[in-house]
C-alpha cells in the first residue's frame, strides 16, 4: 500500500509505503515545488497530511510533533513551542488566527516511482 498526497494541481504524488508510518508519529515528505508536507497516521490507521512548516517559528518541524486527540479530533503539537494543529482542518487550536495548509491523502496499491520504501 502506497500513501499519496494531492498537490495544488490536483495531481497525486506517491510518497512512501504506508508501512513507513508509525501510528502516533509523523514523517516529512519533500514536494516537487520545494515545499514540505508532514504525514501522520493515527491509532486507527487513518492518515493525515499538513504543511510541515510550523508557522510560529518558521521551522519545518511539524512532522516531528506528537499526535493527540481533543474532542475526538486528531491534532499534532509542534515540537518547538507546543502549539496544537487540527490535522483535519489545519486550524491552530491555540490561536484562532493561524492555520496551516492541509493536503488530501489516500492509499493506493501502486508502488511509488523510484521505490525508496
Amino acid at each position, binding site marked *: 500500500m502506497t500513501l499519496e498526497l494531492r498537490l495544488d494541481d490536483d495531481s497525486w504524488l506517491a510518497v512512501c509505503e504506508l508501512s513507513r508510518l508509525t501510528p502516533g508519529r509523523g514523517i516529512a515528505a519533500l514536494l516537487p515545488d520545494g515545499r514540505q508536507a508532514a504525514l501522520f497516521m493515527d491509532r486507527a490507521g487513518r492518515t493525515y497530511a499538513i504543511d510541515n512548516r510550523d508557522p510560529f517559528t518558521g521551522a519545518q518541524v511539524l512532522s516531528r510533533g506528537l499526535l493527540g486527540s481533543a474532542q475526538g479530533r486528531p491534532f499534532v503539537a509542534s515540537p518547538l513551542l507546543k502549539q496544537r494543529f487540527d490535522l483535519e482542518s489545519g486550524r491552530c487550536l491555540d490561536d484562532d488566527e493561524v492555520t496551516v495548509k492541509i493536503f488530501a491523502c489516500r492509499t493506493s496499491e501502486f508502488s511509488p516511482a523510484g521505490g525508496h*520504501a
Partner: protein
Amino acid sequence: MAESTTPTIAVVGHGMVGQRFLEALAEQGVTERARVVVLCEEPRAAYDRVQLTSYFSGRTPDELSLTDPDFIREHGIELHLDDPAETVDRAARTVTSRSGRTIVYDALVLATGSYPFVPPVPGKDAAGCFVYRTIEDLLAIEEYAKTARTGVVVGGGLLGLEAAGALKGLGLATHIVEFAPRLMPVQVDDGGGAALLRTIENMGLTVHTGAGAQEVTTADGTPHGPVTGMKLSTGTELTADLVVFSAGVRPRDQLARDTGLEVGERGGIVVDEQCRTSDPAVFAIGECALAADGRVYGLVAPGYEMAQTAAAAVAGAIELPGEGEPKPFTGADTSTKLKLLGVDVASFGDAHGAAEGCLDVVYSDSRSGVYKKLVVAKDGTLLGGILVGDAESYGMLRPMTGSVPPVSPEQLVLPAGAGAPVALGPSALPDDAVICSCHNVTKGEICACSSLPEVKKCTKAGTGCGSCVKVIGQLLPETGDKGLCGCFPYTRSELYEIVRTLRLGSYAELLDSHGREEARGGEGCEICKPAVGSILASLGSGYILDGEQASLQDTNDHFLANMQRNGSYSIVPRIPGGEITPDKLIVIGEVARDFGLYTKITGGQRIDMFGARVDQLPAIWARLVDAGFESGHAYGKALRTVKSCVGQTWCRYGVQDSVRMAIELELRYRGLRAPHKLKSAVSGCARECAEAQSKDFGVIATASGWNLYVGGNGGATPRHADLLAQDLSDAELVRLIDRFLMFYIRTADRLERTSVWLERLEGGLDHLRDVVVHDSLGLCDELEALMAKHVDDYRDEWAETLNDPDRLRRFVSFVNAPDAPDPSVQFVPERDQIKPDLQILTLEGVSSR
C-alpha cells in the same frame, strides 16, 4: 505671545529627564506645532546616566546613548550640544547661551539636573581629584588611573559605591570614606549597612565609616599638585593618588537664582504640581526642581513623571492643546532596587520605620551577607522594608506594600529551606503584577481566563519562553481535578502505581483502561504520552524507541538529540564527571569540524555540538561511538551530568577523590528516566567548587566520608539542597542515592524537579529521611531492586540504534527523498562558527531549487 508665528519652547539641559520631556512633547503632538530648541552643556546628547558605571564593563558611550538622531530630526528639534545656557531674561523672555545664541521663548523648561557636592576641603582641586557624574568624568578617571595604584572614594552612598566598584575594576586598591556611621545611610539601616560592609570588605575594599575627608595632600604641597593622599577626620592618613568625590548631589539652580526665580532654602527650583516655577512661563523638572511636596527627587523615575506632567502643562501654557489635563506631580515612590558591586540592595516604602508604632521583622545572616528587614504596622500591614544581599523578593514585596500580606512577615524574610514552611505563591501578587514578561501579561488578565489553553489563546501568555506556564497554572482556578491532562483523571504518581501494580506494558492499554471516558480509544495527547513513556521506561521496559514506545517520546527522545530553533539538532556525548582524555577531546573537535558544527562548553562540564541535520545524526554518532563515547541523554528527562571538582588527587585542599565518585555515580545512573531531568555534582571538600548544593543530589566530601544533599536547584527558582545524611561510606552513599532517586521517580509529578517535589512532600525533609534512611514505609528493598535492574539493563541508546537498520530508518529529513538534506536548515557565520539562518525560516515556502 506672538500671534501669527509658531510658539517656541526652550529647553535647558539634555539629560535623561530633558530627553524624556522631548519625547512627551512629541507624543502629544506639540513638536508639530511649536519650535523646540534645546541647549545642552555636555558634548554629547542624552545618555543613560543610571548605567554610567557600565562604561567600565565594556559599554561604549554610544551604547549608553538615549537619543536617537532620527527622533531629533523627525520632530524638527534644534539640539545644540556643548553650548550651555548662561543667562535668562524673563522680562524679554530670552535665554542666551555661552556661544551667544539668543532664543526668544514662549515657554522655558529648566532640566539642568544636579551637580556633585564636593566638600570644601584643602586640596579638593588637586590633580587626581575627580567627580563621578558624566561620561567625560569617567574618561578622565580612566586615563588618570593608568598611573595610579590607590584610590579614595569620598561618599559611601549609592554613587560612591558605584565609583568604588569602578576604581576596583580599574585595578586600584580602593578606600571608601563615609561620614555617616554606615554605608548607604539613606537607603538602609544599621543592620543592612553591616551586611553590606562585610560583603564589600570581603571583596577587598577598605571602608572607613564615621569618617570625613579633612584634607587632600599633594606632592608639592600646593592645592593643585598631584594627589598623594588624604587625611581623615578620625586622624587616619591614607596614601592615595586618585580621589573621587561622590558625597551626594545638589540641585543645579544657579540659572534660576540669577534670574530671580524662587528657590528652596536648601536649593532646588520651587515648582507647583504642574512643574511651574514662580514665573508661569518657566518650568523646572528633574533633579533641579523642588517638587510641590517639598522634596528634591534624585531618582530618574520621578524625573520622568515630572517630564510627562510638564509637557502637558507647557502645551497648555502656550495654548496648544496637548492630551488632556496634565497629571499633577505630587510626589513619587522612591523604592529602589540596585546591584552595587554585585550586591543586591533594595529599599521600599517606609524603609526606616518612621510610622508611629510600627514594628520590625529582621532576618540577618552575617555569613552570607544577607539582611532583610520588613516594617509592619500593628495590624500587620506591610509598610516597607530593606533587603541587602538577597533582593529576590523585592518584586513580590513592593506591590504588597500598604496591604496585609497573606502570610506572616517572618515567612517573607526567611530564606527557602531554612525553616520557611511556605514559599509565597503567586496568589499573593497584586492583579497588575506582570506574570508573562515576553508578552507583558498581568496576573489580572490571566485570572480572567479559566484554563491554560484559554490563557494562551486570549493573552498569548506562556507562548513565549514558557517559563511562566507553571505560575499560570497556580493562578488558574482549582478545578478539583488533579488529573494529569484531558486524557487521565490521575496524577503522574498515581499512574506510576497503576502501571507498576497492574504490570501494564503499554500506553494504549493504560489509556483504554484508566483514561477518562471520552479519551479512551483516542490518540492521547502531547502531555501524557511522554509522561507515561517515562514511567514505562523507569519501570524497565527496555529500549525506549521500539514498538509503541517510539510514538510516546518527545521529538528529542525520538531522535536522541536536542531540537533547536531551526529544526536542527544538538549533540552532547557523555563525559562522566567532566573527565576526558586528550584523544577524546580531539575526536570531538574533529567530528565538529568535519560536520561543520557549532561547539560550546555546557554548564555541566560537557561539550555541546549544534547544527546537525536529522539525517546527519547517525554518521556523527558512528564516529563518536567508535571513539568510545555514548549518549549523554541531554535530550531526555533523565540523568544529565555529575559535575566534579578535581578533588584530592590534585587539589591541595581536597579530602576525597571527587572525580572518581562523580564518574561512578554518573555511570550508575546514566539513562535513568525520571519525571524531570536530574543533575548532580561531587565536591572534594567543603569549598564546594562543584556547586553540589544546587543539584538534585549533591555530594560533598568530608574528612571521613561523604555528605549527601538533596533537592537543590539552580535555574529560574534556585534552591539550596538539604543535607540528608552525613559522613557516609561509598557504599552507604550509593545505596541512599538509589533509594532517594527511585522514591522521587515513584512519587513526583510530571515535570516536577526534586526541589519542588521536596517542598511539596508532606512532612518534607524529615519524612524523606524516614522513608529512605530509616525505611519507615518498608519500601527500601523494592527501591534498591528497581535501581539494580536499571543498572543491569542499561545499554547505550546510540550504540543500539546504530546497530539496527530498522531503527536507523527514521533518521531521514524526507521519507520520499532519503538522501536530500532539508533545505530550510541553513547556517550563517558568527564569531568564526555557525549560527542558524533565521532569515530563511521567514520565507513561507522554502525552495530546494
